[in-house]
Protein backbone atom coordinates (compact mmCIF):
# COMPACT_ATOMS: atom_id res chain seq x y z
CA UNK A 1 0.00 0.00 0.00
CA UNK A 2 1.40 3.35 -0.91
CA UNK A 3 0.71 7.01 -1.12
CA UNK A 4 2.53 8.85 -3.85
CA UNK A 5 3.38 12.55 -4.05
CA UNK A 6 3.47 13.99 -7.52
CA UNK A 7 3.64 17.50 -8.92
CA UNK A 8 5.86 19.87 -10.85
CA UNK A 9 9.21 21.09 -9.59
CA UNK A 10 9.36 23.32 -6.53
CA UNK A 11 5.75 22.83 -5.60
CA UNK A 12 6.65 21.47 -2.16
CA UNK A 13 6.25 17.67 -2.34
CA UNK A 14 9.36 16.88 -0.34
CA UNK A 15 8.69 19.65 2.17
CA UNK A 16 5.12 18.52 2.83
CA UNK A 17 6.19 14.97 3.56
CA UNK A 18 9.17 16.02 5.64
CA UNK A 19 7.19 18.51 7.71
CA UNK A 20 4.50 15.94 8.39
CA UNK A 21 7.16 14.19 10.48
CA UNK A 22 7.73 17.32 12.55
CA UNK A 23 7.13 16.24 16.16
CA UNK A 24 4.94 19.23 16.87
CA UNK A 25 1.79 17.44 15.78
CA UNK A 26 -1.93 17.46 16.54
CA UNK A 27 -3.77 14.47 15.14
CA UNK A 28 -1.29 13.01 12.67
CA UNK A 29 1.94 11.74 14.06
CA UNK A 30 4.74 10.19 12.04
CA UNK A 31 6.21 7.54 14.31
CA UNK A 32 8.83 6.49 11.79
CA UNK A 33 11.09 7.80 10.24
CA UNK A 34 12.36 10.38 12.62
CA UNK A 35 12.16 14.07 11.65
CA UNK A 36 15.83 14.79 12.37
CA UNK A 37 16.99 11.89 10.22
CA UNK A 38 14.75 12.96 7.40
CA UNK A 39 16.10 16.48 7.62
CA UNK A 40 19.66 15.27 7.30
CA UNK A 41 18.65 13.47 4.13
CA UNK A 42 16.35 16.00 2.52
CA UNK A 43 17.32 19.41 3.81
CA UNK A 44 20.17 21.64 2.80
CA UNK A 45 21.21 23.61 5.87
CA UNK A 46 23.42 25.99 3.96
CA UNK A 47 20.58 26.94 1.61
CA UNK A 48 18.00 26.83 4.36
CA UNK A 49 15.60 24.76 2.26
CA UNK A 50 14.86 21.27 0.97
CA UNK A 51 17.14 19.91 -1.71
CA UNK A 52 15.60 19.50 -5.14
CA UNK A 53 14.70 15.84 -5.56
CA UNK A 54 17.20 14.28 -7.95
CA UNK A 55 15.66 13.13 -11.21
CA UNK A 56 18.19 10.36 -11.85
CA UNK A 57 15.59 8.28 -10.07
CA UNK A 58 11.86 8.73 -10.70
CA UNK A 59 10.80 7.30 -7.38
CA UNK A 60 12.00 7.47 -3.80
CA UNK A 61 10.40 4.82 -1.73
CA UNK A 62 10.39 4.99 2.06
CA UNK A 63 8.43 3.19 4.69
CA UNK A 64 6.26 5.50 6.70
CA UNK A 65 4.49 4.74 9.93
CA UNK A 66 1.85 7.17 10.96
CA UNK A 67 -0.71 7.40 13.67
CA UNK A 68 -3.91 9.24 12.91
CA UNK A 69 -6.47 10.15 15.52
CA UNK A 70 -9.85 9.34 13.99
CA UNK A 71 -13.24 9.84 15.66
CA UNK A 72 -13.13 6.24 16.91
CA UNK A 73 -9.59 6.54 18.22
CA UNK A 74 -5.95 6.32 17.20
CA UNK A 75 -5.09 4.22 14.20
CA UNK A 76 -1.67 3.08 13.10
CA UNK A 77 -1.05 3.07 9.40
CA UNK A 78 1.90 1.49 7.68
CA UNK A 79 2.57 2.93 4.31
CA UNK A 80 4.98 3.34 1.53
CA UNK A 81 5.67 6.97 1.01
CA UNK A 82 6.72 7.64 -2.55
CA UNK A 83 8.39 10.93 -3.34
CA UNK A 84 9.00 11.86 -6.95
CA UNK A 85 11.04 14.65 -8.55
CA UNK A 86 9.07 17.33 -10.40
CA UNK A 87 11.67 17.13 -13.13
CA UNK A 88 10.05 13.98 -14.57
CA UNK A 89 7.15 16.02 -15.94
CA UNK A 90 9.39 18.08 -18.16
CA UNK A 91 9.32 17.20 -21.82
CA UNK A 92 13.09 17.14 -21.98
CA UNK A 93 13.27 14.50 -19.24
CA UNK A 94 10.45 12.45 -20.69
CA UNK A 95 11.93 12.44 -24.17
CA UNK A 96 15.36 11.19 -23.14
CA UNK A 97 15.68 7.49 -23.90
CA UNK A 98 17.74 6.76 -20.84
CA UNK A 99 14.80 7.82 -18.64
CA UNK A 100 12.31 5.36 -20.09
CA UNK A 101 12.97 2.56 -17.58
CA UNK A 102 12.51 4.99 -14.68
CA UNK A 103 9.30 6.34 -16.22
CA UNK A 104 7.89 2.83 -16.61
CA UNK A 105 8.77 2.09 -13.02
CA UNK A 106 6.97 5.24 -11.97
CA UNK A 107 3.84 4.31 -13.94
CA UNK A 108 3.88 0.88 -12.33
CA UNK A 109 3.93 2.41 -8.85
CA UNK A 110 1.28 4.98 -9.48
CA UNK A 111 -1.29 2.36 -10.56
CA UNK A 112 -0.66 0.44 -7.37
CA UNK A 113 -0.96 3.44 -5.10
CA UNK A 114 -3.87 3.77 -2.71
CA UNK A 115 -3.76 7.51 -2.89
CA UNK A 116 -2.20 10.15 -5.07
CA UNK A 117 -1.33 13.52 -3.62
CA UNK A 118 -0.98 15.99 -6.45
CA UNK A 119 0.77 19.09 -5.18
CA UNK A 120 0.03 22.18 -7.24
CA UNK A 121 1.48 25.68 -6.81
CA UNK A 122 -0.62 28.79 -6.31
CA UNK A 123 -1.16 30.89 -9.42
CA UNK A 124 0.00 34.45 -9.82
CA UNK A 125 -3.41 36.10 -9.50
CA UNK A 126 -4.17 34.85 -6.01
CA UNK A 127 -0.75 35.49 -4.50
CA UNK A 128 -0.60 38.50 -2.27
CA UNK A 129 2.76 40.24 -1.89
CA UNK A 130 6.13 38.66 -2.55
CA UNK A 131 7.52 37.46 -5.89
CA UNK A 132 4.29 36.96 -7.77
CA UNK A 133 6.30 36.86 -10.96
CA UNK A 134 7.84 33.56 -9.89
CA UNK A 135 4.48 31.85 -10.24
CA UNK A 136 2.54 30.81 -13.31
CA UNK A 137 -0.57 32.70 -14.38
CA UNK A 138 -4.06 31.39 -13.82
CA UNK A 139 -4.35 30.55 -17.49
CA UNK A 140 -1.13 28.54 -17.43
CA UNK A 141 -2.28 26.88 -14.25
CA UNK A 142 -5.54 25.77 -15.89
CA UNK A 143 -3.72 24.51 -18.96
CA UNK A 144 -1.33 22.57 -16.79
CA UNK A 145 -4.23 20.99 -14.95
CA UNK A 146 -5.74 19.89 -18.24
CA UNK A 147 -2.55 17.91 -18.82
CA UNK A 148 -2.89 16.33 -15.41
CA UNK A 149 -6.44 15.30 -16.28
CA UNK A 150 -5.16 13.62 -19.41
CA UNK A 151 -2.47 11.84 -17.46
CA UNK A 152 -4.92 10.51 -14.84
CA UNK A 153 -7.39 9.35 -17.43
CA UNK A 154 -4.76 7.57 -19.43
CA UNK A 155 -2.47 6.17 -16.81
CA UNK A 156 -4.45 5.91 -13.59
CA UNK A 157 -7.82 4.34 -14.45
CA UNK A 158 -7.98 2.57 -11.07
CA UNK A 159 -7.08 5.39 -8.72
CA UNK A 160 -9.45 5.74 -5.76
CA UNK A 161 -8.24 8.79 -3.90
CA UNK A 162 -6.88 11.81 -5.65
CA UNK A 163 -5.96 14.50 -3.19
CA UNK A 164 -5.31 17.90 -4.74
CA UNK A 165 -3.11 20.06 -2.53
CA UNK A 166 -2.90 23.71 -3.46
CA UNK A 167 0.31 24.30 -1.54
CA UNK A 168 2.01 27.39 -0.14
CA UNK A 169 -1.30 28.61 1.22
CA UNK A 170 0.64 31.07 3.39
CA UNK A 171 1.28 33.03 0.18
CA UNK A 172 -2.35 33.48 -0.74
CA UNK A 173 -4.55 33.42 2.33
CA UNK A 174 -4.72 33.95 6.04
CA UNK A 175 -3.71 30.42 6.97
CA UNK A 176 -4.75 30.67 10.60
CA UNK A 177 -8.20 31.83 9.71
CA UNK A 178 -8.70 29.17 7.05
CA UNK A 179 -7.22 26.51 9.33
CA UNK A 180 -9.72 27.21 12.05
CA UNK A 181 -12.57 27.30 9.60
CA UNK A 182 -11.61 23.90 8.18
CA UNK A 183 -10.43 22.49 11.47
CA UNK A 184 -10.65 18.82 12.26
CA UNK A 185 -11.25 17.51 15.71
CA UNK A 186 -11.96 13.85 16.43
CA UNK A 187 -14.97 14.78 18.52
CA UNK A 188 -16.66 17.69 16.91
CA UNK A 189 -15.38 19.18 13.71
CA UNK A 190 -17.21 22.34 12.69
CA UNK A 191 -17.31 21.02 9.10
CA UNK A 192 -17.81 17.63 7.48
CA UNK A 193 -15.45 16.47 4.73
CA UNK A 194 -18.13 17.26 2.21
CA UNK A 195 -18.37 20.86 3.45
CA UNK A 196 -14.62 21.34 3.61
CA UNK A 197 -14.24 20.12 0.07
CA UNK A 198 -17.09 22.27 -1.19
CA UNK A 199 -15.61 25.34 0.50
CA UNK A 200 -12.06 24.85 -0.73
CA UNK A 201 -13.22 23.96 -4.21
CA UNK A 202 -15.48 26.99 -4.45
CA UNK A 203 -12.96 29.39 -3.06
CA UNK A 204 -9.64 28.23 -4.47
CA UNK A 205 -10.21 25.69 -7.23
CA UNK A 206 -12.95 27.53 -9.12
CA UNK A 207 -10.94 27.95 -12.34
CA UNK A 208 -10.62 24.17 -12.72
CA UNK A 209 -13.92 23.11 -11.19
CA UNK A 210 -15.39 21.84 -14.43
CA UNK A 211 -12.21 19.93 -15.21
CA UNK A 212 -12.39 18.28 -11.81
CA UNK A 213 -16.02 17.31 -12.33
CA UNK A 214 -15.15 15.95 -15.71
CA UNK A 215 -12.38 13.78 -14.30
CA UNK A 216 -14.73 12.64 -11.55
CA UNK A 217 -17.21 11.48 -14.15
CA UNK A 218 -14.62 9.69 -16.22
CA UNK A 219 -12.99 7.50 -13.64
CA UNK A 220 -15.58 5.45 -11.84
CA UNK A 221 -14.90 4.85 -8.17
CA UNK A 222 -12.57 7.82 -7.94
CA UNK A 223 -12.92 10.42 -5.19
CA UNK A 224 -11.20 13.76 -5.82
CA UNK A 225 -10.79 16.03 -2.82
CA UNK A 226 -9.37 19.55 -2.71
CA UNK A 227 -7.17 20.91 0.06
CA UNK A 228 -5.06 23.97 0.70
CA UNK A 229 -1.80 23.13 2.46
CA UNK A 230 1.17 24.95 3.90
CA UNK A 231 4.30 23.86 5.71
CA UNK A 232 3.70 26.85 7.96
CA UNK A 233 0.39 25.65 9.29
CA UNK A 234 0.16 22.32 11.06
CA UNK A 235 -3.62 22.00 10.86
CA UNK A 236 -3.75 22.49 7.11
CA UNK A 237 -0.78 20.19 6.65
CA UNK A 238 -2.50 17.36 8.50
CA UNK A 239 -5.94 17.54 6.86
CA UNK A 240 -5.19 15.50 3.71
CA UNK A 241 -3.71 12.81 5.91
CA UNK A 242 -6.66 12.62 8.22
CA UNK A 243 -8.84 12.25 5.16
CA UNK A 244 -6.65 9.50 3.70
CA UNK A 245 -6.24 7.92 7.12
CA UNK A 246 -10.00 7.39 7.43
CA UNK A 247 -9.81 5.07 4.45
CA UNK A 248 -6.41 3.52 4.82
CA UNK A 249 -6.70 2.56 8.47
CA UNK A 250 -7.59 -1.08 8.70
Amino acid at each position, binding site marked *: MGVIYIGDRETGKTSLAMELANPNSHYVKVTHPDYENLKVMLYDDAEGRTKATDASQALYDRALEIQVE*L*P*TGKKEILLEWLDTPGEIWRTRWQQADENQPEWQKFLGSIVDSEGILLVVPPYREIISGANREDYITQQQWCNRFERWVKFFRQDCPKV*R*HLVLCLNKADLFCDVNKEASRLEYSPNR*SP*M*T*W*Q*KRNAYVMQRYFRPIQTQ*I*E*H*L*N*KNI*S*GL*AIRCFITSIHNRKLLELPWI*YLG*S*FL*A*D
Partner: protein
Amino acid sequence: MGNICVIGPRASGKTTYLAALAYKRMTIGKSKQFNIIPLNDDSREIAEKAENIICQGESFEPTRVESVDTLPDYSFKIAVKKFPRIKEESFQLVFKDYPGEVFEKIAESDAGDAIQEEFIEECFRKDVEGCLILFSDWIKGTDNHYNRIINRFLELMDSHDRAKDLRLAVAMSKCERGELWSGRLDPETDLFNRHLPMTTATLREKVTPKNIRFYAISTFGVLRRNDPRPNRIDEQGKSGQASVLREIPRWQPYNIIAPLYWLNKG
Protein backbone atom coordinates in the same frame (compact mmCIF):
# COMPACT_ATOMS: atom_id res chain seq x y z
CA MET B 1 -27.40 -18.90 11.62
CA GLY B 2 -28.42 -17.60 8.20
CA ASN B 3 -25.95 -16.73 5.50
CA ILE B 4 -26.91 -13.86 3.27
CA CYS B 5 -25.13 -12.56 0.18
CA VAL B 6 -25.52 -8.89 -0.55
CA ILE B 7 -25.16 -8.36 -4.26
CA GLY B 8 -25.99 -5.79 -6.89
CA PRO B 9 -24.35 -3.46 -9.37
CA ARG B 10 -21.56 -1.06 -8.51
CA ALA B 11 -22.38 1.84 -6.20
CA SER B 12 -25.83 0.52 -5.40
CA GLY B 13 -25.16 1.06 -1.70
CA LYS B 14 -24.34 -2.45 -0.42
CA THR B 15 -21.42 -1.62 1.82
CA THR B 16 -23.11 1.48 3.21
CA TYR B 17 -26.19 -0.59 4.01
CA LEU B 18 -24.13 -3.10 5.99
CA ALA B 19 -22.31 -0.29 7.77
CA ALA B 20 -25.64 1.21 8.81
CA LEU B 21 -26.68 -2.13 10.29
CA ALA B 22 -23.42 -2.38 12.17
CA TYR B 23 -23.55 1.17 13.43
CA LYS B 24 -26.98 0.81 14.90
CA ARG B 25 -26.26 3.17 17.78
CA MET B 26 -26.69 6.02 15.32
CA THR B 27 -29.12 4.51 12.92
CA ILE B 28 -31.53 1.99 14.36
CA GLY B 29 -30.71 2.72 17.97
CA LYS B 30 -33.50 5.24 18.11
CA SER B 31 -36.04 2.57 17.35
CA LYS B 32 -37.30 0.39 20.17
CA GLN B 33 -38.50 -2.19 17.69
CA PHE B 34 -35.11 -3.47 16.68
CA ASN B 35 -31.80 -4.20 18.20
CA ILE B 36 -28.72 -5.24 16.30
CA ILE B 37 -25.66 -6.67 17.92
CA PRO B 38 -22.44 -6.98 15.91
CA LEU B 39 -21.00 -10.39 16.69
CA ASN B 40 -17.53 -10.43 15.18
CA ASP B 41 -14.51 -8.23 14.48
CA ASP B 42 -15.46 -7.55 10.88
CA SER B 43 -18.82 -6.17 11.89
CA ARG B 44 -17.31 -4.05 14.65
CA GLU B 45 -14.75 -2.73 12.19
CA ILE B 46 -17.35 -1.66 9.68
CA ALA B 47 -19.21 0.10 12.48
CA GLU B 48 -16.04 2.10 13.12
CA LYS B 49 -15.84 2.94 9.46
CA ALA B 50 -19.40 4.20 9.56
CA GLU B 51 -18.36 6.56 12.33
CA ASN B 52 -15.09 7.66 10.73
CA ILE B 53 -16.36 7.99 7.20
CA ILE B 54 -20.14 8.27 6.87
CA CYS B 55 -20.60 10.35 10.01
CA GLN B 56 -17.81 12.69 8.88
CA GLY B 57 -19.60 13.43 5.63
CA GLU B 58 -17.68 11.07 3.38
CA SER B 59 -18.62 7.97 1.45
CA PHE B 60 -17.15 4.49 1.14
CA GLU B 61 -14.76 3.38 -1.54
CA PRO B 62 -15.89 0.72 -4.01
CA THR B 63 -15.41 -2.75 -2.54
CA ARG B 64 -12.28 -4.33 -3.88
CA VAL B 65 -12.19 -7.40 -6.03
CA GLU B 66 -9.67 -9.63 -4.37
CA SER B 67 -10.54 -13.18 -3.50
CA VAL B 68 -13.51 -14.63 -1.70
CA ASP B 69 -11.29 -15.58 1.23
CA THR B 70 -10.38 -11.98 1.95
CA LEU B 71 -13.99 -10.77 1.87
CA PRO B 72 -15.10 -9.91 5.36
CA ASP B 73 -17.99 -11.78 7.01
CA TYR B 74 -20.28 -9.45 8.85
CA SER B 75 -22.11 -11.28 11.55
CA PHE B 76 -25.00 -9.80 13.54
CA LYS B 77 -27.70 -10.78 15.90
CA ILE B 78 -30.94 -9.02 15.08
CA ALA B 79 -33.69 -8.80 17.64
CA VAL B 80 -37.17 -7.73 16.63
CA LYS B 81 -39.88 -6.77 19.07
CA LYS B 82 -43.04 -6.26 17.11
CA PHE B 83 -45.32 -5.22 19.93
CA PRO B 84 -44.67 -4.21 23.48
CA ARG B 85 -45.18 -7.06 25.93
CA ILE B 86 -44.67 -9.67 23.22
CA LYS B 87 -41.52 -11.70 23.49
CA GLU B 88 -38.83 -10.51 21.12
CA GLU B 89 -37.69 -12.70 18.27
CA SER B 90 -34.08 -12.83 17.36
CA PHE B 91 -32.00 -14.29 14.59
CA GLN B 92 -28.39 -14.30 13.54
CA LEU B 93 -27.17 -13.41 10.10
CA VAL B 94 -23.81 -13.55 8.39
CA PHE B 95 -23.35 -11.28 5.43
CA LYS B 96 -20.96 -11.36 2.54
CA ASP B 97 -20.60 -8.04 0.77
CA TYR B 98 -19.82 -8.60 -2.90
CA PRO B 99 -18.04 -6.07 -5.09
CA GLY B 100 -20.51 -4.73 -7.64
CA GLU B 101 -17.84 -5.07 -10.26
CA VAL B 102 -18.00 -8.85 -9.98
CA PHE B 103 -21.78 -8.89 -10.13
CA GLU B 104 -21.84 -6.78 -13.27
CA LYS B 105 -19.32 -9.06 -14.93
CA ILE B 106 -21.40 -12.21 -14.73
CA ALA B 107 -23.26 -11.18 -17.86
CA GLU B 108 -20.07 -10.87 -19.87
CA SER B 109 -19.32 -13.80 -22.09
CA ASP B 110 -15.64 -14.30 -21.32
CA ALA B 111 -16.28 -16.86 -18.60
CA GLY B 112 -13.43 -18.59 -16.85
CA ASP B 113 -12.27 -15.69 -14.73
CA ALA B 114 -11.14 -17.42 -11.56
CA ILE B 115 -12.37 -14.77 -9.17
CA GLN B 116 -15.70 -14.76 -10.90
CA GLU B 117 -16.02 -18.51 -10.45
CA GLU B 118 -15.13 -18.31 -6.80
CA PHE B 119 -17.77 -15.71 -6.15
CA ILE B 120 -20.45 -17.67 -7.90
CA GLU B 121 -19.63 -20.85 -5.99
CA GLU B 122 -19.73 -18.93 -2.74
CA CYS B 123 -23.02 -17.27 -3.57
CA PHE B 124 -24.85 -20.52 -4.35
CA ARG B 125 -23.46 -22.64 -1.56
CA LYS B 126 -26.16 -24.78 0.05
CA ASP B 127 -25.88 -22.96 3.36
CA VAL B 128 -26.72 -19.59 1.82
CA GLU B 129 -30.27 -18.75 2.80
CA GLY B 130 -30.86 -15.87 0.55
CA CYS B 131 -29.57 -12.97 -1.47
CA LEU B 132 -30.29 -9.34 -0.93
CA ILE B 133 -30.05 -7.71 -4.33
CA LEU B 134 -29.75 -3.94 -4.39
CA PHE B 135 -30.49 -1.82 -7.43
CA SER B 136 -30.26 1.94 -7.48
CA ASP B 137 -30.28 3.05 -11.06
CA TRP B 138 -32.73 3.22 -13.90
CA ILE B 139 -31.23 5.67 -16.35
CA LYS B 140 -31.58 4.76 -19.98
CA GLY B 141 -30.11 1.39 -20.81
CA THR B 142 -29.73 0.10 -17.29
CA ASP B 143 -32.87 -2.02 -17.35
CA ASN B 144 -31.47 -3.86 -20.33
CA HIS B 145 -28.09 -4.27 -18.69
CA TYR B 146 -29.57 -5.49 -15.40
CA ASN B 147 -31.89 -7.83 -17.23
CA ARG B 148 -28.95 -9.54 -18.88
CA ILE B 149 -27.18 -9.90 -15.57
CA ILE B 150 -30.26 -11.25 -13.82
CA ASN B 151 -30.93 -13.74 -16.60
CA ARG B 152 -27.43 -15.08 -16.28
CA PHE B 153 -27.67 -15.04 -12.50
CA LEU B 154 -30.85 -17.12 -12.56
CA GLU B 155 -29.27 -19.58 -14.99
CA LEU B 156 -26.36 -20.04 -12.65
CA MET B 157 -28.72 -20.38 -9.72
CA ASP B 158 -30.47 -23.15 -11.55
CA SER B 159 -27.30 -24.95 -12.59
CA HIS B 160 -26.17 -24.86 -8.97
CA ASP B 161 -29.41 -26.48 -7.97
CA ARG B 162 -30.66 -23.52 -5.98
CA ALA B 163 -33.63 -22.55 -8.16
CA LYS B 164 -36.16 -23.88 -5.66
CA ASP B 165 -34.72 -22.89 -2.34
CA LEU B 166 -32.78 -19.63 -2.58
CA ARG B 167 -34.72 -16.57 -1.49
CA LEU B 168 -34.22 -13.30 -3.29
CA ALA B 169 -35.04 -10.00 -1.63
CA VAL B 170 -34.81 -7.43 -4.40
CA ALA B 171 -34.56 -3.88 -3.17
CA MET B 172 -34.50 -0.46 -4.77
CA SER B 173 -31.96 1.37 -2.65
CA LYS B 174 -31.51 5.11 -2.08
CA CYS B 175 -35.29 5.51 -2.07
CA GLU B 176 -35.16 8.84 -0.26
CA ARG B 177 -34.78 10.35 -3.73
CA GLY B 178 -37.81 12.43 -4.61
CA GLU B 179 -38.74 10.41 -7.71
CA LEU B 180 -38.81 7.21 -5.67
CA TRP B 181 -40.00 8.15 -2.22
CA SER B 182 -43.67 8.19 -3.13
CA GLY B 183 -43.37 4.72 -4.71
CA ARG B 184 -42.00 3.12 -1.57
CA LEU B 185 -45.34 1.77 -0.36
CA ASP B 186 -45.82 -0.52 -3.32
CA PRO B 187 -42.29 -1.01 -4.61
CA GLU B 188 -43.08 -3.90 -6.91
CA THR B 189 -45.52 -1.85 -8.97
CA ASP B 190 -44.39 1.69 -8.47
CA LEU B 191 -40.64 1.25 -8.50
CA PHE B 192 -39.65 -1.98 -10.17
CA ASN B 193 -42.36 -2.35 -12.77
CA ARG B 194 -42.14 1.27 -13.59
CA HIS B 195 -38.39 1.82 -13.73
CA LEU B 196 -36.96 -1.63 -14.45
CA PRO B 197 -39.76 -3.42 -16.33
CA MET B 198 -37.68 -6.04 -18.14
CA THR B 199 -35.62 -7.04 -15.13
CA THR B 200 -38.77 -7.25 -13.02
CA ALA B 201 -40.57 -9.38 -15.61
CA THR B 202 -37.64 -11.81 -15.74
CA LEU B 203 -37.55 -12.15 -11.98
CA ARG B 204 -41.28 -12.73 -11.74
CA GLU B 205 -41.32 -15.24 -14.49
CA LYS B 206 -38.35 -17.31 -13.43
CA VAL B 207 -38.38 -17.28 -9.66
CA THR B 208 -40.91 -19.24 -7.61
CA PRO B 209 -43.25 -16.54 -6.25
CA LYS B 210 -42.74 -17.56 -2.64
CA ASN B 211 -39.01 -17.05 -3.03
CA ILE B 212 -39.05 -13.46 -4.20
CA ARG B 213 -40.06 -10.13 -2.69
CA PHE B 214 -39.54 -6.54 -3.70
CA TYR B 215 -38.53 -3.79 -1.28
CA ALA B 216 -37.85 -0.10 -1.14
CA ILE B 217 -35.05 0.90 1.21
CA SER B 218 -32.92 3.93 1.93
CA THR B 219 -29.86 3.77 4.09
CA PHE B 220 -29.68 7.54 4.37
CA GLY B 221 -33.40 8.18 4.77
CA VAL B 222 -35.20 11.49 4.87
CA LEU B 223 -34.81 14.41 7.26
CA ARG B 224 -37.91 13.90 9.36
CA ARG B 225 -41.13 11.99 9.34
CA ASN B 226 -43.00 15.09 8.23
CA ASP B 227 -40.16 16.57 6.22
CA PRO B 228 -39.39 14.13 3.42
CA ARG B 229 -36.46 16.05 2.05
CA PRO B 230 -33.69 13.53 1.33
CA ASN B 231 -30.99 13.37 3.99
CA ARG B 232 -28.21 13.36 1.47
CA ILE B 233 -25.99 15.57 -0.68
CA ASP B 234 -24.93 14.38 -4.11
CA GLU B 235 -21.34 14.63 -5.13
CA GLN B 236 -20.76 16.93 -8.10
CA GLY B 237 -19.96 15.17 -11.33
CA LYS B 238 -20.99 11.73 -10.11
CA SER B 239 -24.54 11.83 -11.54
CA GLY B 240 -26.15 10.79 -8.28
CA GLN B 241 -23.96 7.70 -7.94
CA ALA B 242 -22.05 9.11 -5.01
CA SER B 243 -23.63 10.93 -2.10
CA VAL B 244 -23.02 11.67 1.53
CA LEU B 245 -25.26 12.25 4.51
CA ARG B 246 -26.55 15.76 4.83
CA GLU B 247 -27.53 16.06 8.49
CA ILE B 248 -25.65 13.48 10.42
CA PRO B 249 -27.60 13.68 13.69
CA ARG B 250 -30.78 12.98 11.74
CA TRP B 251 -29.54 9.79 10.21
CA GLN B 252 -32.47 7.39 10.17
CA PRO B 253 -32.50 4.66 7.54
CA TYR B 254 -35.75 3.60 5.98
CA ASN B 255 -36.93 -0.03 5.93
CA ILE B 256 -33.53 -1.68 6.12
CA ILE B 257 -34.56 -4.56 8.41
CA ALA B 258 -37.68 -5.77 6.62
CA PRO B 259 -35.93 -7.63 3.80
CA LEU B 260 -33.68 -9.40 6.28
CA TYR B 261 -36.59 -10.48 8.41
CA TRP B 262 -38.29 -11.96 5.39
CA LEU B 263 -35.11 -13.64 4.10
CA ASN B 264 -34.70 -15.32 7.42
CA LYS B 265 -38.27 -16.07 8.44
CA GLY B 266 -40.14 -16.13 5.17
